[in-house]
C-alpha cells in the first residue's frame, strides 16, 4: 500500500527542519546503527549543514544494544555530549522498544520504528509522535543486504526516514555514494514507498520537541560530589550482552560416516591412544565381528574420508584396526536376555558371521549353517593367504563361535529344508553371498587352460596349484588382483592383467594394484578379450582395443569395443569378471521384497543379508549389512514393527569437513606406513607380505574430528577466562561469556558450536 504523500514533498526538505536537530538511533551491534547515523549526517551535509555523528559504543559484539547520534546545525557544533533529548528517534530493533529507548523524546518528535507490524497495530501507542512504521528487515532481506542470518537494515530504513522528513529520495544518492553504499539505494526507495506514516494527535501536533508540556526530562542524575565514594558498583554481567553462546557438541566424524561396517573409528582410535589396545578393542568389537580380517582386506573408505588427507595424509586407519586386533585378545562377553530367540543363519561368510556374532553376544541362540568344510566363505576360499593368513581368520572366527554359536558345516540346505526352517526358529537369515562366476561368452572360453579365477584361488588356498608359463588374468576387481598375485606365487613366468577400462577406473583397492605392479604384474588396459585360441590348450587370447564411450546413468563411461585386435600369447587364462546374483535356491513360493522374504501377502521371518541382499561386494559392507539385518530382525521380533534394514548408521548429519578443522593447531606428521616384505621374498611365498604397523603411534595423528579430546584449547583461547575444567568436560560461565565465539572458532576439531540464545537468556537491558 502506498501513502498519499507526494514523493517530492519539498525540494530540499529544509523548510520543515528546526535546527539545531538531534537524532538518536537505537539498534543492536551488527545491525549497522552507527553507519545509519553516519548516513543521516551525510544526508544533512548535502544540504550544506554542519553535522556531528558518533556511536555510543558498548562492547564490540553483535547483539549488544547500541545507540548512535547525529547532530545538525547551521554553525559548527561544540556539544560533545550524548543525545539525551532527540528530535528524531530511529529504532532498528522493535524488541528494544521501551521506556528507556523513548526517554527524553518529547511530544511532536519524529519516531521511526522497524517493525513487522502494520501501522494500525499501534493504535493508542506513540500518539504524541510523528510516527513511521516500516518492515525494513523484510525489505533488506528481499534486496539481499547482509547475510541470511544477519540482515543489515540501516540503508533501507533511511529511505523511510527521508520520506518522514519530506525530503526527496534523490537527496540520499550522494549520501549513499559517500559511504560506498549506492547499491542499497533500491532498498531505500522500496522503504520510501512502503513506510506508513501517522501524524501526532492534534493537541500535540503544534508542540515543538523542546519545551513541550508532555516532555519528561529523563537525563541521568547528577550526583552530589560526596555521594559516589561509598557506592559499590553493581556487578556487570557481560554475559547478558550476548545473543549467542557457545556449547560443546559432538559432530559426526567423516571416517565413522564412511565406514560400511558402522564402526566407531574415531572412538576406537582415541581409546587406543588414551587407554591402549584392549580398550580400543572393546569399542571396535561392538560393531566389528572380524577386526583381524578388516584390518587387512578392507578397502578403507574411512581413509578416503579422513580430514587429515587434506593436511599431511590420511590416518592409516586400516592398519590401526589390524594393530588392535593383533594386540588384544579381548572378547565382549555374551550378555543374558530375558527373551532369548532362536535364529538360523545360512552361510558362514562375513555377513553370516557378523549377524551370528551380533545375535549371539546379545544372548540369543544361533545356528550357523555353511555348505563348506569351514567358516569364512570368501575369506576362507577366496582371499589369498598372503593377504589374510588362515590363522588370522581363524582367530576372528573362533571369537564368534566362542559366544555359543552352534555351527553346522558341510550343510547345504535344499529348498525343502529351507522351507521348514522358519517353523523351527524365530527368524532365519540368508547370507549365501553371490551366485556363480560370470563368463565372457566368447569363442574358445571352454578351452582347457581357461579357468575361473575364484576356483583357482580356492584351489591355491588349499595348496593344490602349480602354474607354469604365461598367465593372463581378465578383470579389474580385487579378485583379479588376487588371481594375478597368486599366479606369481604359484610359479607363473609372467602375469598380465587385462582390463577394459583405465587404471583409475579399476574397482580393486588402490594399494593392491600398487602391490601387484610392485611384484611384477603387468597391466594391459583398455583391452577386452574377444576370443581364446589354441590347439588343445589355450595358447593365445585375442584382445580388442576398447574406447571410452558415452557416460551411463552413473556418469561412468561405457567401454566401446573396437574392431582393432591384437594377440597375446599365454598358457593359462584366469577369468575374474565378477559374480552373478544369488543362485536360485529358495522355495518356489518365497518372494524377495525389500531384503525380506514374503509368501504371498505374508512377511516371513526370513531376511537376506550381505551380498545376496545388496551385492555391495566388499567384506566390510557384508559385515555391516549382516549386523544391521540381524538387529532389524531382532527389533521386528521384539516390537512387531518392520522398520526395514537401514543401509548405514548415518544419522543424516553432515560430517566435519576439512574446512572445519583448525589445521594450524596441529603439527605436520606424515602417516606411519606399514612394513612390507621386499618383492624378492614374495614371489614363491604365501606368507603374509604386509606386516602392519610397528606400533600404535599412528593413533596420535587422529584429529578426533567432532569429538572433544579435552585439549584445553577453548579454555586457553577464551579472552574472558570463563571456561573451566569441570568433571569430564568444561563449564562455561554464562554470566560472563560475551558470546564472542572465539572458543568455537579455535576448537581444533569442531567439537563446539554457537547457538542463538532464547529470549529468556537474552537480556534486553540497555
Amino acid at each position, binding site marked *: 500500500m502506498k501513502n498519499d504523500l507526494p514523493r517530492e514533498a519539498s525540494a530540499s526538505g529544509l523548510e520543515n527542519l528546526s535546527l539545531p536537530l538531534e537524532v538518536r538511533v537505537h539498534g543492536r551491534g551488527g545491525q549497522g546503527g552507527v553507519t545509519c547515523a553516519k548516513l543521516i549526517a551525510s544526508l544533512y551535509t548535502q544540504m550544506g549543514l554542519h553535522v556531528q555523528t558518533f556511536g555510543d559504543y558498548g562492547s*564490540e559484539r553483535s547483539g549488544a544494544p547500541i545507540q548512535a547520534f547525529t547532530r545538525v546545525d547551521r554553525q*559548527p557544533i561544540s556539544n560533545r555530549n550524548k543525545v539525551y533529548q532527540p528530535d528524531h528517534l530511529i529504532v532498528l530493533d522493535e524488541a528494544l522498544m521501551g521506556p528507556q529507548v523513548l526517554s527524553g523524546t518529547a511530544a511532536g518528535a519524529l519516531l521511526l520504528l522497524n517493525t513487522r507490524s502494520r501501522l494500525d497495530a499501534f493504535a493508542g501507542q506513540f500518539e504524541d509522535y510523528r510516527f513511521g512504521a516500516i518492515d525494513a528487515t523484510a525489505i533488506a532481506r528481499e534486496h539481499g543486504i547482509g547475510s541470511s542470518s544477519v540482515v543489515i537494515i540501516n540503508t533501507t530504513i533511511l529511505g523511510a526516514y527521508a520520506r518522514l522528513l519530506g525530503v526527496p529520495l534523490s537527496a540520499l544518492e550522494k549520501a549513499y555514494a559517500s559511504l560506498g553504499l549506492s547499491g542499497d539505494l533500491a532498498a531505500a526507495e522500496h522503504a520510501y514507498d512502503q513506510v506508513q506514516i501517522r501524524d501526532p494527535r492534534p493537541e500535540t501536533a503544534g508542540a515543538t520537541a523542546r519545551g513541550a508540556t508532555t516532555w519528561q526530562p529523563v537525563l541521568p542524575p547528577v550526583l552530589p560530589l560526596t555521594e559516589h565514594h561509598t557506592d559499590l558498583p553493581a556487578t556487570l554481567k557481560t554475559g547478558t550482552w550476548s545473543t549467542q553462546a557457545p556449547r560443546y557438541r559432538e559432530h559426526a566424524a567423516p571416517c565413522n560416516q564412511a565406514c560400511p561396517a558402522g564402526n566407531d573409528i574415531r572412538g576406537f582410535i582415541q581409546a587406543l591412544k588414551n587407554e591402549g589396545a584392549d580398550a580400543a578393542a572393546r569399542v571396535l568389537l561392538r560393531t566389528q565381528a572380524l577386526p583381524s580380517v578388516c584390518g587387512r582386506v578392507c578397502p578403507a573408505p574411512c581413509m578416503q574420508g579422513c580430514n587429515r588427507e587434506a593436511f599431511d595424509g590420511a590416518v592409516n586407519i586400516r592398519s590401526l584396526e589390524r594393530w588392535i586386533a593383533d594386540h588384544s585378545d579381548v572378547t565382549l562377553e555374551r550378555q543374558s536376555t530375558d527373551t532369548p530367540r532362536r535364529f538360523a543363519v545360512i552361510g558362514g561368510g562375513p555377513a553370516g558371521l557378523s549377524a551370528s556374532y551380533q545375535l549371539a553376544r546379545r544372548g540369543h541362540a544361533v545356528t550357523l549353517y555353511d555348505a563348506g568344510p569351514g567358516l569364512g566363505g570368501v575369506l576362507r576360499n577366496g582371499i589369498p593367504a598372503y593377504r589374510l593368513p588362515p590363522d588370522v581368520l581363524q582367530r576372528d572366527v573362533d571369537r564368534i563361535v566362542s559366544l555359543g554359536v552352534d555351527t553346522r558345516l558341510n550343510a547345504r540346505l535344499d529348498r525343502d529344508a529351507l522351507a521348514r526352517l522358519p517353523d523351527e526358529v524365530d527368524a532365519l537369515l540368508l547370507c549365501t553371498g553371490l551366485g556363480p562366476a560370470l563368463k565372457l561368452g566368447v569363442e574358445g572360453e571352454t578351452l582347457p587352460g581357461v579357468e575361473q579365477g575364484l576356483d583357482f584361488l580356492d584351489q591355491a588356498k588349499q595348496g593344490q596349484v602349480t602354474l607354469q608359463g604365461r598367465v593372463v588374468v581378465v578383470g579389474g576387481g580385487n579378485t583379479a588382483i588376487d588371481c594375478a598375485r597368486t599366479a606369481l606365487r604359484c610359479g607363473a613366468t609372467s602375469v598380465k592383467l587385462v582390463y577394459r577400462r583405465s587404471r583409475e577406473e579399476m574397482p580393486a583397492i588402490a594399494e593392491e594394484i600398487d602391490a601387484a605392479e610392485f611384484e611384477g604384474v603387468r597391466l594391459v588396459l583398455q583391452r577386452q578379450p574377444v576370443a581364446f585360441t589354441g590347439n588343445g590348450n589355450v595358447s593365445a587370447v585375442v584382445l580388442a582395443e576398447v574406447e571410452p564411450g558415452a557416460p551411463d546413468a552413473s556418469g561412468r563411461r561405457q567401454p566401446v569395443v573396437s574392431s582393432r585386435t591384437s594377440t597375446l600369447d599365454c598358457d593359462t587364462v584366469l577369468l575374474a569378471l565378477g559374480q552373478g546374483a544369488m543362485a536360485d535356491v529358495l522355495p518356489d513360493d518365497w518372494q524377495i521384497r525389500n531384503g525380506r522374504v514374503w509368501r504371498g501377502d505374508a512377511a516371513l521371518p526370513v531376511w537376506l543379508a550381505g551380498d545376496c541382499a545388496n551385492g555391495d561386494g566388499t567384506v566390510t559392507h557384508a559385515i555391516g549389512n549382516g549386523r544391521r539385518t540381524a538387529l532389524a530382525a531382532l527389533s521386528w521380533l521384539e516390537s512387531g514393527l518392520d522398520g526395514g534394514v537401514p543401509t548405514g548408521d548415518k544419522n543424516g548429519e553432515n560430517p566435519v569437513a576439512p574446512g572445519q578443522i583448525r589445521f594450524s593447531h596441529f603439527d605436520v606428521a606424515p602417516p606411519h606406513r606399514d612394513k612390507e616384505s621386499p618383492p624378492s621374498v614374495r614371489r614363491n611365498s604365501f606368507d603374509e607380505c604386509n606386516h602392519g604397523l610397528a606400533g600404535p603411534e599412528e593413533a596420535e595423528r587422529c584429529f578426533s574430528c567432532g569429538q572433544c579430546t579435552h585439549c584445553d584449547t577453548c579454555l586457553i583461547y577464551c579472552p574472558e577466562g570463563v571456561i573451566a575444567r569441570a568433571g569430564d568436560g568444561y563449564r562455561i560461565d554464562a554470566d560472563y561469556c560475551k558470546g564472542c565465539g572465539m572458543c568455537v572458532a579455535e576448537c581444533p576439531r569442531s567439537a563446539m558450536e554457537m547457538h542463538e540464545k532464547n529470549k529468556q537468556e537474552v537480556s534486553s537491558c540497555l
Partner: protein
Amino acid sequence: MSLKLLSANHGAGLAATLAGRANRTGRGFCSGVYPITPSTECMEYLCLQEIEKGRVVKVESEHSAMAVCIGAAAAGARSFTTTSSNGLAYMAENCIAAAYLRLPVVMAVANRTIGPPWNIWADHGDALMLRDHGLIQFYCADNQELFDTVLAAFRLAEDPAVMMPAMVCMEGFILSHTVAQIDVPDQALVDAFLPTTTVPHRLGEAPHALGQIDLPHQTEMHRHQHLSAMNGAARVYAGIQDEFEHIFGRRLGDAVVPYRADDAETLIVSMGTIGATAERVVDQLRAQGQKVGALRVRLFRPLPSEAIRAWFAGKQRIAVIDRDVSLGFGGVLWGEVNSLADPGTVVQSYLAGLGGGDVRPEHIVNMLADLQPRKNAGHPAMMEAA
C-alpha cells in the same frame, strides 16, 4: 581545500598521509602500526593509503610499532604512529627512547582508560603517563583542531630547535570516533607548510649505534639541551601558528585557549572536549550574570606556564577539571597549574569523566556551586558522570 566528512581517527590518518607525501622529495615516510581500540581506525586508514616513497609497516606489538618509527626517523624519514591506553603503556619504553634520541616521531593518541579492568572509553591518564620524558603533548577538542594539530606537530617536532617526538591526543570515541566536517587542504599547501624532514643526527653511510652510554656530566648536558628545546618549543609553536594561518587561511589554536576569561572571577580549566562543554557552561552562567570564564590547555608539554599564570592573575576561584587521576595526589592538570595562581586564589581539583563518563554542563554547574562557597581548596573531588 575541500570539506570532508571524517572521523577524528581518519582525520589524523589523513593528516599523516599528507605529511608523509610532503616528504617525498626527502627521505620519505615510514609508519609502524599496531591496532588497539579506539585508535585502530586511524592505523586502518593509514594502511589503505598509497603514499609515494612511503611505507606503513604492520608489526606485532605497539613496542615494535614505535621501534619501526625510531628506525625510520633515525634514517631521516618522516614518521608517525597511533595507539591508545595499555598499547601506549607497552609502547612507552620506545616512546621514551624516541624522545631521548631526539627523533621527531608524531603520534596520534586516542585516549583510553588504562586497565584492568578493561574499559575502552576516554581517559587522559594514558598519555599523561608520558608527561615527564621529553615528548610534546597536545590535547584537542574537535575534528578540525585534531587534523590541523597533527600537521602542525610534524612541523614542530621536526623543527631543528625542537627535534623531539610529539603526541597529539584525542579522547577515545568522544572525539576519535566522532564524524564531522574537516576542511582538508590540497597537497600543494601541505607541501608548502611542511619542509623536507631533516634529522641532523640521522644515520648516514657510516654505521654507528645511537644512544650509547652517557656519563653523568654528559647526561646533565643532554637533559639541559632537551629542557631548553622543550622550553623553546612554545615560542617555535607561535611562529608555526602564523605560518599555518598564512598558508591555510585559518588560525591554528593557541597553546592555551581562553574563553570569556578576561573579566571572569571564576575560571574553569580543562583539556580536550570537556573544554568545549565548559564553554557552553560559561555562556549559560554569563547569561545569568555570573562572571565565569574558561581556559582550555591545548599544549600540555611544554606547559605554557607564563600564559596560564597571566590568565590566572586576579581570579578568585579556579576549578580545574581532570579526566584523569594521579592516584595519591589528584588531577594531573590541577597539580601542574595549581602553583601558577595568585596566593589566595582557590584552585580546586575536580575529577570527572573518568573511564569515559559523559561530562555534561550540569556536572560543571554543580562543581561551580561547590566551588563558590569555598574559602580554601580542599581535597580533590571526584564527580561521577555515567
